[in-house]
C-alpha cells in the first residue's frame, strides 16, 4: 500500500479556501433572502398605497356623483406613458355582491382571482391586493401588478451579488494561494536547509527563512547538531590522535628491538628479540584494526562531494605489490582513467586493505592472487585456496556479524568491510569457490553511482 504524504501547501490552501468559499456562498443566500423579503415588503407597501389611493378616489367620486362613473377604469391610464404594456397594473372595482363595477383597460382577459379574499396574494404572475371599503355598502378595490418587474429586479440583484462575491472569492483565492505559497516556500527552504545537513555539514541552520513560532525548535535542533558535530569531531580526532599515540611507541619498540637484534650474536637472545618483534607486529595489526573499527563506527562512508577513487585503488595496489613483489604469485590489473564517486577514500582504503590482506593471508596453491580493478567501479580480488565447504562459507558470512571480542582474525576485518560497505553504499560480494573455478575464493567490491572518465 502506498503511503501518500499530505502536502502542506494543499492542506493549508484547502483549509483556508474551502471554508472561505462556503461562507461566501452562504452569505449570497442570506443576502438574497433578506433582499427579497425587504424588496417584496417595499413593493407590497407601494401596491397597498396605490390601492388605498384608488379606493379613496373611487369612493369620493361615488359620494359626490352617486356613482363610480365610467372614469374609474381609466385611473391607471397614466402608466401607459411610464411602463411597458406587460408591466402595467390592473384595476377592478367590485361591488358588495362581487360584481365587477369598473375595470381598467389593461385587464384584458385576466380573470379576477377566486375567491376574492381581502389582502395580498400572488396569482398567475401577478401580485394582487383586494382592499374592501371601510364604508358600509361600498365595494372593494382590486389592484394587480405583474411580477415581471419584481422578478427582473431580484434577478439583477442576484446577478450583482453573485458576480461581486465571485470576484471577491477569486481575489480571496488568489490572496490565499499567494500567502500559502509564500509561507510554504519559507518552510520548504528551511526543510531543504535542514535536509542538506549530514555528518560533514552540521553548521547552524540558516535563520533567514524561519518563523518566530518554530525558532525554539530550530534552536534545539542547532544545539543537537552542534553536540553531534563536536562528538563526531572528537571521534575522528580520537582516531587520528590514537593513530599517533599508539603507533609511535610500537614503532620505537620495534626499531629498538631490530637494532638490538642486529648487534647481538647470541642465538637465544636473538630468538627472544624475534619473538618480541612478532608480538609487536601483532600489536601493530591489532591497533590498525581498532583504528579502522573506530573510523567505521564514526560513520565513515560517504562524502559530501565526489573524488577520484582510482588513485586510492592504485596506491593500495602498489603497496600490495611491495608486500608481494613476485609476479608469479600476484597479478595486478590497474584501473585507468578517473572514477568519480562520493565514497570516502579512507573508507574505500580500509575496505580494500582488509580484502587484500585476507587474500594474501589465505592464498595457497599454484594459481596467483589476482586484483582486477580494470573494470570501472569494480575491484575483484581472488586467491587460490582449497574449496570451501558450504558450511564453512556460510560460517564465514556469519562472521561478518561482529563478535563480542576483538581479535586479529578474519572476522573482524570482514565485519569492518561489511559495515563500511553498508555506510558507503558499496556492494560487497564473496564467492567460494571462485566463479568458473572449482577452487579458491573471490571478493568483489562494487562502487555505487560512479562517474567514469576514460583515460
Amino acid at each position, binding site marked *: 500500500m502506498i503511503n501518500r504524504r499530505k502536502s502542506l501547501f494543499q492542506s493549508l490552501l484547502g483549509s483556508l479556501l474551502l471554508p472561505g468559499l462556503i461562507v461566501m456562498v452562504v452569505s449570497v443566500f442570506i443576502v438574497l433572502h433578506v433582499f427579497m423579503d425587504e424588496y417584496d415588503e417595499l413593493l407590497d407597501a407601494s401596491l397597498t398605497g396605490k390601492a388605498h389611493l384608488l379606493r379613496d378616489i373611487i369612493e369620493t367620486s361615488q359620494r359626490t356623483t352617486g356613482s363610480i362613473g365610467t372614469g374609474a377604469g381609466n385611473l391607471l391610464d397614466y402608466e401607459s406613458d411610464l411602463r411597458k404594456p406587460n408591466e402595467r397594473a390592473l384595476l377592478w372595482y367590485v361591488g358588495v355582491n362581487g360584481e365587477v363595477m369598473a375595470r381598467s383597460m389593461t385587464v384584458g382577459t385576466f380573470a379576477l382571482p377566486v375567491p376574492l379574499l381581502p389582502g395580498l396574494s400572488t396569482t398567475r404572475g401577478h401580485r394582487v391586493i383586494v382592499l374592501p371599503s371601510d364604508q358600509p355598502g361600498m365595494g372593494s378595490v382590486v389592484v394587480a401588478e405583474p411580477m415581471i418587474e419584481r422578478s427582473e429586479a431580484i434577478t439583477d440583484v442576484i446577478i450583482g451579488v453573485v458576480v461581486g462575491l465571485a470576484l471577491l472569492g477569486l481575489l480571496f483565492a488568489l490572496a490565499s494561494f499567494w500567502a500559502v505559497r509564500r509561507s510554504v516556500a519559507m518552510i520548504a527552504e528551511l526543510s531543504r536547509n535542514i535536509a542538506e545537513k549530514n555528518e560533514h555539514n552540521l553548521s547552524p541552520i540558516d535563520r533567514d527563512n524561519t518563523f518566530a513560532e518554530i525558532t525554539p525548535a530550530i534552536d534545539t535542533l542547532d544545539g543537537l547538531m552542534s553536540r553531534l558535530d563536536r562528538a563526531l569531531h572528537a571521534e575522528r580526532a580520537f582516531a*587520528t590522535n590514537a*593513530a*599517533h599515540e*599508539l*603507533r*609511535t611507541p*610500537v*614503532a*620505537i*619498540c*620495534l*626499531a*629498538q628491538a*631490530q*637494532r638490538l637484534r*642486529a648487534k647481538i650474536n647470541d642465538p637465544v637472545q636473538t630468538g627472544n628479540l624475534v619473538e618480541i618483534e612478532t608480538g*609487536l*607486529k601483532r600489536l*601493530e595489526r591489532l591497533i*590498525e584494526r581498532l*583504528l579502522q573499527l573506530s573510523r567505521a563506527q564514526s560513520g565513515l562512508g560517504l562524502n559530501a562531494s565526489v573524488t577520484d577513487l582510482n*588513485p*586510492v585503488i592504485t*596506491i*593500495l595496489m602498489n603497496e600490495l605489490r611491495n608486500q608481494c613483489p613476485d609476479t608469479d604469485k600476484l597479478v595486478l590489473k590497474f584501473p585507468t582513467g578517473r572514477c568519480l564517486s562520493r565514497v570516502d*577514500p*579512507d573508507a*574505500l*582504503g580500509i575496505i580494500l586493505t582488509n580484502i587484500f590482506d585476507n587474500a594474501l593471508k589465505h592464498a595457497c596453491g599454484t594459481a596467483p592472487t589476482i586484483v582486477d580493478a580494470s573494470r570501472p567501479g569494480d575491484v575483484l580480488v581472488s586467491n587460490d585456496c582449497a574449496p570451501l565447504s558450504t558450511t564453512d562459507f556460510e560460517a564465514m558470512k556469519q562472521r561478518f556479524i561482529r563478535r563480542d571480542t576483538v581479535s586479529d582474525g578474519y572476522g573482524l576485518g570482514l565485519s569492518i568491510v561489511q559495515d563500511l560497505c553498508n555506510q558507503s553504499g558499496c556492494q560487497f560480494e564473496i564467492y567460494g569457490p571462485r566463479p568458473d573455478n572449482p577452487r579458491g575464493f573471490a571478493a568483489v567490491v562494487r562502487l555505487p553511482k560512479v562517474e567514469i572518465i576514460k583515460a
Partner: protein
Amino acid sequence: MRILLIEDEAALARPLIEHLEADQNIVEWFDTLDEADAALRTLDYDVVLLDLKLPDGDGLIFLSSLRSRMLRTPIIILTARDKVSDRIDGLNRGADDYVIKPFDLDEVKARVHTVCRRSANQIAQTVQLRDLVINLSDHSVIRAGQPVRLTAKEWGVFETLLRRKSQIVPKESLEASIYAYGEEIESNALEAHISRLRTKLGKDLIVTHRGMGYALTK
C-alpha cells in the same frame, strides 16, 4: 649517501640512524622543522626522511614549502598517519614515498635506496659502468669480474658521482656526502679518496675539472 632525518622522537630516531649509518650512509638528525630547514638551505642531501607531526609545525606544510622552492631532493614521509587520504595528500604535495609507523628498519633502508635510484633515473639496483658492475643495494663493486673493496668514505664519494652521472659535482658537495654536519674535514682528504678510487676503479674513471669539481667520464 647523506640523509636528513626530521623526527621528534629521539627513541625512534636513534635506532633508525644507527641502522642507516650501518649501511654506510651519513645521517643528520633534527627534531624541529626550523633546524632542518636551515640544514637544507646549507647542504645538499640525497634523501630526506620527514615525520609529519613535529613540535614546531606540520610536516606536510613544510614539504609543500620545500617543493615550492624547487628542492628536488627525494623526500620520504615517516608517519603514524595511516589514512589513504593522508598518503595521497603527502604524495600529491611532492613526497616520493610514504612509510607508516611502525616500520621495519630494513624496509626504510630499502625505500631510501629505491627513491634515490628513482631520483637518479636508475631503475635497476645494479649499474654497469665501463668494466665496473656496481650494486647500489649492497654497495659492492666488481671490476673485470673481480670484487673491489671500497671504504665507507670512498663509497660515499663514488656513489655521489654515480648518482649525478655526467654532471660535474663540486668539491663541497662531495665533502658533504662523506662528512657529517660539524665534523672536521681534513685538508686534501677528498683528493686522497679520489686518488684511491682512481687506483681501484680505473685511472681515467674520474675527471678533474679545475676550479669546478669532479665528474665520472662519459
